[in-house]
């Protein structure tokens, strides 16, 4: 009796929870369908000729989401992941819809500054060769500047953190040069360096150098003395103390510096390209603005966002790999 009773309640709760789950999971799909219906049926007020890009994107999203939904009934991990992300996806799809309605459909925002999603997608696809080329130029500049700046910052930081003598000579330099926003060097850099590329590399390197050097030196200077003492009694040489004790012990702080340096390198890159360099995403932004082609402005902003957030994800992934020993210790 009691056994049967327990069994029936468990079935009931399972059905109930499942139903709740399904509702949350299906909502993003419903929103996508509404998006599509509204876009195809509501009359346009902005006098653009619409293309198939935006509806095609919605259709692809509907197919992908449906496929994931079907798979999620089989794969438990996917199911849980989807359940967690479904409200967020729903919100994103709703925002896109609001964007479409207030621009293309109702023309509540002035043109040419606020084109609809279809127009921006159009720019993204029709101008992809120039956008792609600009992205490559930007990445080349960013990597060259970032790597040079990070290396100089690491070396300076280690020297400062390790030796009082180096600290004496580098600190004033850091104090005087560090706080100057890197882009303030643009007028001088453009004169001193033969090409605008190397001028920009210099400026980005300066932007990265400062936070990396500061964090590295303070990280190394704050390593517990006991670590060095233990290593010395175990027969460690000076080289071992620097590379196998000081640097690993300071690595969490060093990563914060590398992360901060990355942030300022993004800023510097875009500003440098907007002001002096004749290529790259920053240049593309100002160029599109010059033609009052705001769909291209938005398109390049999307590219900038995707590239930069991928790079941030990359550095976090590297951090998690390198600092695997920190798991369960410190989070930042």
């Amino acid at each position: 009796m009691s056994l049967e009773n327990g069994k029936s309640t468990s079935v009931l709760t399972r059905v109930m929870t499942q139903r709740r789950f399904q509702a949350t999971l299906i909502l993003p799909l419903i929103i996508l369908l509404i998006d599509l219906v509204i876009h195809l049926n509501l009359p346009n007020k902005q006098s653009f000729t619409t293309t198939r890009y935006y509806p095609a994107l919605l259709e692809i999203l509907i197919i992908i989401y449906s496929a994931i939904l079907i798979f999620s009934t089989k794969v438990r991990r996917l199911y849980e992941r989807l359940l967690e992300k479904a409200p967020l996806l729903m919100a994103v799809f709703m925002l896109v819809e609001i964007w479409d309605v207030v621009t293309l459909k109702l023309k509540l925002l002035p043109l040419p500054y606020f084109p609809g999603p279809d127009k921006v997608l159009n720019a993204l696809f029709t101008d992809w060769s120039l956008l792609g080329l600009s992205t490559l130029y930007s990445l080349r500049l960013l990597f060259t500047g970032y790597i040079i700046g990070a290396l100089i910052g690491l070396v300076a930081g280690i020297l400062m953190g390790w030796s009082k003598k180096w600290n004496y000579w580098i600190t004033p330099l850091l104090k005087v040069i560090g706080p100057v926003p890197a882009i303030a060097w643009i007028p001088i850099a453009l004169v001193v360096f033969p090409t605008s590329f190397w001028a920009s590399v210099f400026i980005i390197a300066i932007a990265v150098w400062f936070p990396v050097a500061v964090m590295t030196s303070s990280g190394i200077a704050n390593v517990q003395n006991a670590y060095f003492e233990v290593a010395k009694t175990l027969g460690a040489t000076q080289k071992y103390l620097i590379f196998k004790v000081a640097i690993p012990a300071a690595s969490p702080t060093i990563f914060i510096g590398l992360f901060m340096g990355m942030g300022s390198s993004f800023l510097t890159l875009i500003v440098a390209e907007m002001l002096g360099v004749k290529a790259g995403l920053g240049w593309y932004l100002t160029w599109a603005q010059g033609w009052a082609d705001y769909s291209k402005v938005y398109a390049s902003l999307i590219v900038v966002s995707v590239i930069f957030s991928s790079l941030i994800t990359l550095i976090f992934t590297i951090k998690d790999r390198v600092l695997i020993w920190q798991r369960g210790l410190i989070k930042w």
Partner: protein
Amino acid sequence: MVSERGLGGSINVQNVRRVFKDVGGKEIVALDKVDLDVRPGELVSLIGPSGCGKSTLLRMIAGLDYPDQGALYLDDERITGPHFTRGLVFQDPTLFPWLNIHDNVATGLVARRIPRDQRLQVMDYLKLVGLEGFEKSYPHELSGGMAQRAALARALVNQPKVLLLDEPLGALDAFTRMTMQDEIIKIWQERGTTMILVTHDIDEAIYLSDRIIVMTSRPGKIQEVIEVPLGRPRERNHPDFLLLRSKILEILHFAKEGESLSYYL
């Protein structure tokens, strides 16, 4: 093999004086006229109130601190700095959190550039301290007692002539501490390493040592050297054990002469 007897070295401390300056620039005599001879393979405890300079003395033997006067010798060779022949274990295990337990224990061998194929003994030492199976773990995954075992293995892997223990069990709970005391004795008996132990635990000193050096503070001096005439293994509640205990308490002025025994029994 791990067990090689007769590794122990002798320590000779001659007329050592060490003066520190406090924040106001006032001089504090941490150690004065300290003479001490530790025989090869002996286990000696330094005991005394805080500020008696027992840790300072140990740090000087390790080569991490320097005397203002006098000198210290290991096997007639003057101590001028840290060396792997004098291993040190702190109260805090100070394992490197970025290395797993195996690599932590191997630190001494790596630091001394011992070739990789000669680092196999690391596993023997992990076995010796009962940490087999934990070589891939990281320090934060270990309990306090296990971390301290790893620190012990890390110090032993260099086969030091002298092992310096600075309140190594001070942060452990009473039960873990007693187990670890037995393990230290086991390692000491197997290997014959000279051991110098700083402790504030009188029972620990009696349980472990051949000799107990009782120190007093301001200025830090050796007040009395007590031979421990008890055989091994020792019983913590043996009358002779307790008698010795009250004697040390008397020397440290925590008990009055005569009344002590009945009071502390």
